[in-house]
């Protein structure tokens, strides 16, 4: 059985919150996605299947709307609002990302939503929360990452280049992760005997508390971190930890060898590759391996320790420059040295480790007569398994069955369609 089987969720389609609905739907919740007749604007986001733009071929839509059912209903119109209320009345949870005031203006204020339904969990996610002077400011993924803190820490050593906001709409993802955590906490509380409630998630605040050291260095000692290429933003400049390998791909060289055991592993890796003699400093690596202990505090103080550490870094750099990135990664990890290959998303997707763990998931798309491979589970549940139970809904695909189930019969639906409220 899925963890959330039988949990009924109504989600008002919005680009900001689609990932939250997906995470709940893939764990078994029955998520009904409500989009306007004519289709949600996100259906026109690329990339498209075969690069043919069409509202049923958006791969962004496909990814973020898996496992959901969909109806096309204009809840801003009076008749549509009544239909939405009927849906909400039979739901456990309402997930929406409308700007502050929009639901109230449509006659869907808290009094209307929860007044009729005290068990309802209403998760509202907005850029800046429901109140405060910034609540009506406009926001996109980029501006959230810029204003909320992540961008300040990301970019290059060269500060004439702008901060870089990472790809993949992580500004929205951060908010969605908090929306899901909130929803699950409230659901568990209800399962334990509690009531429903309203939850407000501020995406700007979510970004603010997803910045690691940038925030707590300020809070603890009013320190300001500075961005550095491919590594942690710190108050001080640190040593580079990213290198181009023999094949031009990059690696993160991780934490350089620090313990005698790690120096021993490095030496044996060099011997295995038959290149130890090419490294003039190899003698220092052997000295490191032979010691009882190495004190990090002695770097820069004790000449021998300083030389040992420098040799460790240089040996790693030598190997990275010599080997293709994936080989360097595998060789180092097998030698017990934690380094990372910098994969592109598709390289990660094809990496044998993730393939073996079941990351590639086939999903049937009957409407196009194709089977498509999707990224799989973010966590591996032993029993209540993650699954894509259906592909993203086509426009209005489940309008009839969903409304029928809440007591709006064929005649009622025909009337809604005649008014242009339902598709």
């Amino acid at each position, binding site marked *: 059985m899925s963890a959330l089987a039988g949990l009924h969720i109504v989600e008002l389609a919005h680009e900001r919150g689609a990932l939250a609905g997906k995470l709940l739907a893939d764990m078994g919740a029955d998520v009904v996605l409500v989009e306007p007749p004519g289709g949600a604007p996100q259906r026109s986001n690329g990339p498209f299947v075969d690069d043919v733009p069409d509202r049923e071929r958006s791969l962004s839509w496909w990814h973020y709307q898996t496992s959901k059912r969909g109806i096309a209903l204009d809840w801003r119109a009076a008749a549509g609002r009544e239909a939405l209320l009927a849906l909400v009345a039979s739901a456990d949870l309402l997930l929406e990302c409308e700007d502050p005031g929009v639901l109230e203006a449509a006659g869907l204020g808290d009094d209307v939503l929860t007044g009729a339904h005290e068990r309802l969990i209403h998760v509202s996610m907005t850029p800046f929360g429901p109140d405060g002077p910034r609540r009506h400011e406009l926001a996109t993924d980029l501006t*959230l990452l810029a204003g*909320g803190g992540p961008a300040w820490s990301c970019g290059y050593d060269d500060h004439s280049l702008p901060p870089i906001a990472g790809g993949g709409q992580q500004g929205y993802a951060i908010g969605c992760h908090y929306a899901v955590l909130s929803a699950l906490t409230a659901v568990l509380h209800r399962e334990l005997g509690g009531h429903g409630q309203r939850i407000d998630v501020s995406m700007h605040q979510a970004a603010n508390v997803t910045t690691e050291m940038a925030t707590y260095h300020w809070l*603890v000692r009013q320190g300001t971190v500075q961005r550095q290429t491919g590594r*942690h933003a710190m108050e001080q400049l640190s040593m580079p930890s990213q290198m181009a390998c023999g094949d031009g791909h990059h690696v993160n060289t991780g934490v350089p060898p620090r313990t005698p055991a790690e120096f021993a592993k490095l030496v044996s890796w060099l011997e295995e590759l038959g290149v130890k003699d090419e490294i003039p400093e190899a003698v220092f690596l052997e000295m490191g391996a032979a010691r009882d202990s190495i004190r990090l505090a002695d770097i820069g103080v004790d000449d021998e320790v300083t030389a040992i550490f420098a040799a460790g870094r240089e040996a790693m750099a030598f190997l990275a420059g010599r080997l293709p990135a994936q080989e360097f990664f595998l060789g180092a990890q097998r030698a017990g040295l934690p380094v990372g290959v910098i994969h592109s998303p598709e390289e990660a997707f094809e990496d044998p480790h993730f393939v073996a763990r079941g990351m590639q998931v086939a999903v049937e798309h009957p409407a196009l007569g194709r089977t498509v491979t999707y990224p799989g589970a973010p966590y591996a549940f032993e029993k*209540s398994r993650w699954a894509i139970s259906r592909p993203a809904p086509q426009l209005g695909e489940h309008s009839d069955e969903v409304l029928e189930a809440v007591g709006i019969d064929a005649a009622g639906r025909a009337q809604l369609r005649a008014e242009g409220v339902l598709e």
Partner: protein
Amino acid sequence: MPKALEGIRICDFTGQLAGAGATRWLAAFGADVVRIEDPVNQGAWDILRSMPPFVDERRGHDFGGGFNNHNVGKRGITLNLRTARGKEILAELVKRSDALTENFAAGVLEKWGFGYERLKALRSDIVYVSNCGFGHRGPYASFKTWGPIVQAVSGLTFTSGLPDRGPAGWGYSYMDHTGGYYMAMAVLLALIHRQRTGEGQWVDMACCETGLTLHGPAILDYTVNGRPMRRPGQPDGNRSEWPAMAPHGIFPARGEDEWLAIACRSDADWERCGGVIEEAWAQAPEWASLAGRIAAQDALEERIAAWTATRDKFEMQRAFQAAGVPAAAVQKPEERIEHDPATQGLWPTVHHREMGDVRVDGLPVRFSETDWEVSRGGPCLGEHTEEVLGEWLGLGSAEVAELRESGVV
């Protein structure tokens, strides 16, 4: 206010941020989270215990600022699992726990004799959530990671950068935060499942895998259209391909390392931009359409950068927002923490036994009925040993003193 997770007990072996961040959420909603640490090496497995930043000149395992931040609201005990008595006590704690959480390298708990089979034998409906870089199964199960390596392997580092410059990556452990979020979700999901079915389970989280799922559309573009992200011109810095927007970037503002983000969602947004910029080039007909602006993105960005570089970032933010264009100053920590009205209430002060009053990250949510609370600092090493062993196991002070003498706690 009642607590959402009152009565939930977590036997917590997590550390750093990837694990501690997960149980931090649960503790803020009232779960009784008990950190279990090694008295012999003084909890050193969680290196943040003694890492900077520090509130003053004092150093040691009770002074790490990051540790305090990530462990607020939890209690801490020490337990020497090299001793038979220590193992017995852990077994008793497990019997009384709803969930056990850890983010050790794969196999560590097993080595101590507390693998999933044993946990299940102690408590049949236990929820066990492990979180490590590559997970407990698969060819790389023995590989070691930390945040930047997870980001590298999962594709996140690659997609943050300018063309032909190598990756910029994430300047912090984004996947420690995010891994922690998914780990907390996993605990909650498994507890919901247990509540409904009576069934416990093991959730094996591989943080790299979690990161990999955060690039869905790019992966579908690859599996459906055969188009890789590793291609000329990619990654494309702060530009936006899906949805297509231009201009979409971070531009220099007046001053040292000052920046402004602008995202034009539509032709109408660009027209509104033109109204703010008030220069002829911003009204050029060839840039009126998205296709025209995308075709000339380099020139467009150059013009905008020259305009923004002489102006104040917050003034520009206000002007663009007033005109209806999404724009935001790249805020420095001080700006967003001390002067931004939209983060008021986000930085609660906790009391830490040694550090005193310290501000920490709050939670970016508000619950109408069972809101979060963060008031107690992270536990000092073994701070709650006697209290927890008394409450959970009914051990008296004399018994705890004896355990202390014999090096068990």
